[in-house]
């Protein structure tokens, strides 16, 4: 329990007052000489137990009444978890608000989302208490710190609205930490409002240890987590996985790959209407659903051929989370898929060229250039989608050009150079060649089939990596994520994490001297074609982007064309799902793919993240309209009245025994004896 006027609790020792008065009265009784002591002693003996109990109860009632009065004055709040107000006045209160789409799950009856419900409760609570001289909001979408005038203002701030961005709770905590350190705040409360989405919390991250250690060092910082971990009973989300604009003669069409996911354990409608909107033309398609949802691959929408680029959206009927019911897409003419192979090995270069030249779709135009190392300067970086680097790792100018190339969203694949090299790029370095014996070959024991270059094909069949034979490969050091491994855990293909674009390291070469990649063909071809396609996306004038504060960086003239929230401010651009246009360039901003796979972190795991720091978790439900804390003074007032009434009843004189036999005192004498 906590109190709005904790200073009033100083008066708590006053509960001893009735006992003190009782003890004083023990010595202030009126003294009277008494003759009939024999009856008095007898009565005392008879009433000893009951009298003591009655005395005790009377005293107890008086003590309770005084205690209740003190509690009434101290204005207690419900919620045993709430200790912030009782801990004293904080210098600063920081609010870390998760604005990710999953926080948009609504209570269907009240229409209130998890985010707004948590915010409203927190606002009420802070309004009742003392939030210190600084009230600071850190929202997950912008990651910026914002001073707020009052808790009530939180409800109207654009920085507390919904967004399509994912949250990064550790990053927000680091921001809070930086603020507390910079301002040398003493007592501070850090309130986190989140739905415990696994993606937002990133519990496996090594950052948590450092955050925890840093907060332990900061004395007087208390953490409160308002957790609404409930999943919606029935929610559908829609995502356009791929969109292509094709021309066929004078006609044009859009080809869409759409995925609908179901969430929750409620009954799923057998059919769901999907609304398409392209160039302000709407159409509806009924789609069969199963437990996992539905997938609509290659759905064609005819468009006027004069629309070389444009936008559209796919929508679902309203459900628990309105933020994942509409997905925007943009389209444009497919760019020429251009790849450059840098290799001093002529044979390998030809192999790469052969695999990249043949398009997966005849409607795409492919162009592949194979150049030796000394002609790197000829590379047209702006028009290239994929760079195959089968040479020693570059350094200097070329290395920085490659980095810029990747930052622009393109793809680089490094293949093992024949010569040994000590250069390091992207934290990775080639090591020595590993050679299998003449009779032995290295097999692929594991590869990642759910995503990236080695993902299963559309039919669901896995790529035949298990049939590959690798005779020679280079081991290498890298902090990247393996996509395929040999039986000895050495990686075949590794992806290095980058903000944009993609960087891959492949430890062998496709020629027969090194592997069966060329001979088997399929894996090699698919892998390169996917890398080329991935890199080509960045070349298109229309691009699909994940919402984020810097998603529209690079161009300054973006205009909002369509959005879920039409009233969004300039500062909130890129944070909401919508379509933006800057001249010939189009950008569709949507929630990231990982937001559609909502997994809740167990509360025990979250609690463990705060081990060693002052932390309390407050579980709430989106449908729960009760306040986080409510004043309880009425309860204590009633308790005081009850205690006083009980005391009065106990203090009432006992009903007197009618002494009728005593009134007639002239008792007849014994029978006369004459």
């Amino acid at each position: 329990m906590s109190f709005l006027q904790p200073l009033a609790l100083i008066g708590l020792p006053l509960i001893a007052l009735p006992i003190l008065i009782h003890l004083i009265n023990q010595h202030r009784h009126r003294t009277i000489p008494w003759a009939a002591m024999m009856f008095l002693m007898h009565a005392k003996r008879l009433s000893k137990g009951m009298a003591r109990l009655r005395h005790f109860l009377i005293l107890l009632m008086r003590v309770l009444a005084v205690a209740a009065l003190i509690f009434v004055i101290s204005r207690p709040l419900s919620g045993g978890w709430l200790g912030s107000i009782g801990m004293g006045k904080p210098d600063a209160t920081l609010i870390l608000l998760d604005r990710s789409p999953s926080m948009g799950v609504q209570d269907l009856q009240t229409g209130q989302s998890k985010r707004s419900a948590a915010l409203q409760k927190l606002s009420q609570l802070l309004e009742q208490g003392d939030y210190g001289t600084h009230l600071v909001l850190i929202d997950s979408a912008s990651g910026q710190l914002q001073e707020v005038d009052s808790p009530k203002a939180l409800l109207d701030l654009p920085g507390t609205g919904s967004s399509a961005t994912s949250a990064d709770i550790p990053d927000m905590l680091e921001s809070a930490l930086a603020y507390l350190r910079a301002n040398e705040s003493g007592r501070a409360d850090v309130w986190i409002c989140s739905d415990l989405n696994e993606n937002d919390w990133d519990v496996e991250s090594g950052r948590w240890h450092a955050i925890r250690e840093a907060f332990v060092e900061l004395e007087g910082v208390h953490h409160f987590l308002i957790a609404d971990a409930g999943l919606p009973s029935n929610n559908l989300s829609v995502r356009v996985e791929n969109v292509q604009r094709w021309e066929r003669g004078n006609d044009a069409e859009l080809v869409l790959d759409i995925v609908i996911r179901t969430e929750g354990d409620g009954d799923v409608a057998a059919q769901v209407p999907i609304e398409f909107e392209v160039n302000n033309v709407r159409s509806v398609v009924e789609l069969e659903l199963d437990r996992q949802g539905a997938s609509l691959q290659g759905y064609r929408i005819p468009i006027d051929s004069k629309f070389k680029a444009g936008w559209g959206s796919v929508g679902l009927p309203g459900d628990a989370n309105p933020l994942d019911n509409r997905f925007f897409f943009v389209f444009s003419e497919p760019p020429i898929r251009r790849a450059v192979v840098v290799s001093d090995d002529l044979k390998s270069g030809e192999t790469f060229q052969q695999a990249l030249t043949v398009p997966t779709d005849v409607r795409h135009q492919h162009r592949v250039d194979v150049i030796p190392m000394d002609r790197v300067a000829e590379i047209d970086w702006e028009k290239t989608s994929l760079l195959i680097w089968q040479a020693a790792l570059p350094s200097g100018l070329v290395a920085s050009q490659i980095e810029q190339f990747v930052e622009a969203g393109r793809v680089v694949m490094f293949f093992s150079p024949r010569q040994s090299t000590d250069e390091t790029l992207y934290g990775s370095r080639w090591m020595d060649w590993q050679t299998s014996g003449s009779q032995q070959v290295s097999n692929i024991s594991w590869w990642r089939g759910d995503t990236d270059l080695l993902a299963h094909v559309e039919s669901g069949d896995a790529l035949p990596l298990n049939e590959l034979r690798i005779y020679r490969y280079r081991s290498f050091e890298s902090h990247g994520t393996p996509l395929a491994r040999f039986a000895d855990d050495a990686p075949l293909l590794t992806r290095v994490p980058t903000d944009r674009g993609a960087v891959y390291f492949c430890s062998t070469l496709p020629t027969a001297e090194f592997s069966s990649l060329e001979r088997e063909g399929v894996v090699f071809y698919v892998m390169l074609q996917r890398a080329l396609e991935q890199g080509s996306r960045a070349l298109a004038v229309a691009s699909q982007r994940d919402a984020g504060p810097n998603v529209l960086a690079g161009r300054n003239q973006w205009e909002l064309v369509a959005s879920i929230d039409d009233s969004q401010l300039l500062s909130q651009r890129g944070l909401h799902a919508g379509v933006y246009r800057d001249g010939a360039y189009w950008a569709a901003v949507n929630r990231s793919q990982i937001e559609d796979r909502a997994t809740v972190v167990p509360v025990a795991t979250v609690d463990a993240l705060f081990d060693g720091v002052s932390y309390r978790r407050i579980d709430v439900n989106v449908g729960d309209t009760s306040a986080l804390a409510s004043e309880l003074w009425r309860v204590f007032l009633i308790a005081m009245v009850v205690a006083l009434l009980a005391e009065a009843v106990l203090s009432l004189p006992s009903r007197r025994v009618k002494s009728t036999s005593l009134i007639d005192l002239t008792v007849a004498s014994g029978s006369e004896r004459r």
Partner: protein
Amino acid sequence: MLQLKRDYLDQKVLERLSTLQLHARLPMIGSVSGKHRSPIRGSSLEFAEYRKYVPGDDPRRLDWRAYARNDRYYIKEFEADTNLRMCLVVDTSGSMDFAYNGMSKLDYARRIAGTLAYIAAQQGDAVGLYCAGTGFHKEISPKRSATHLSAVLDELGAMEASGETGLAGVLHETAERVPQRALIIIISDLFIEPEVVRNCLEHLRFRKHDVAVFHLLEQSELELEFDRPMRFVDMEGGEPVLADPTIIGPQYQRALEMYLDSMNAVIHDTEVDYHRVRINESYDDVLARFLLGRTPKRHK
């Protein structure tokens, strides 16, 4: 008329009660002629019985009329009237000093004892006084002189209540030391165990004494009507008791009832002349009731 200077004696009460006489309920053996029946046949005008003549009887006492009717000799006997010894036993224990509204029980006892002593002396009876208290113990044997009455009345005026009660001892002592039948008048609050009282009264009755008891009680003792906790100080020197009458009231009443019931049983068994008196009553009414109650009823 004896000149009275004792302020506890009220002249008007004495005059009012002068028309009543103090009678013994049992035959008394006195030293002189008086107004009380005697077990010994005498020469009063009160016919007692006929008795067969035996040789040696005075022939002058033969009832010739009876001889004429029955042809047998009968001696006609008459009651002998004698005086009585009245022993006033007054409890002078500390509890007798209790007074809540008005006079104390000792003052009340003083008035009853003084008035009775005066009445008895006036009708020629011997009066004695025994003060029963550990703090105040006096003993005046019954005599019938006016001087003796004065001494008794002086002693009554001077007696004080203090210490524990010595009533039981005094009663047993009186039972043994008063040689002949006497009227023993006990004036006390009897705050002793009823069984102790029973022993005393049975002892007195065994010695053929006529016993009368004035059991004095104060109204507040009966009702314990205090509305706040009090410190009760034992008037006989015991430990003080802190009690809340509002809480222990019912138990007190129950204890009192039990005591009075036991006392009733004692009175019934010992056949003494018992008067339970609230001291806010007028003592002359109590005495009038006492004297009238002892007046012999005439047989039709």
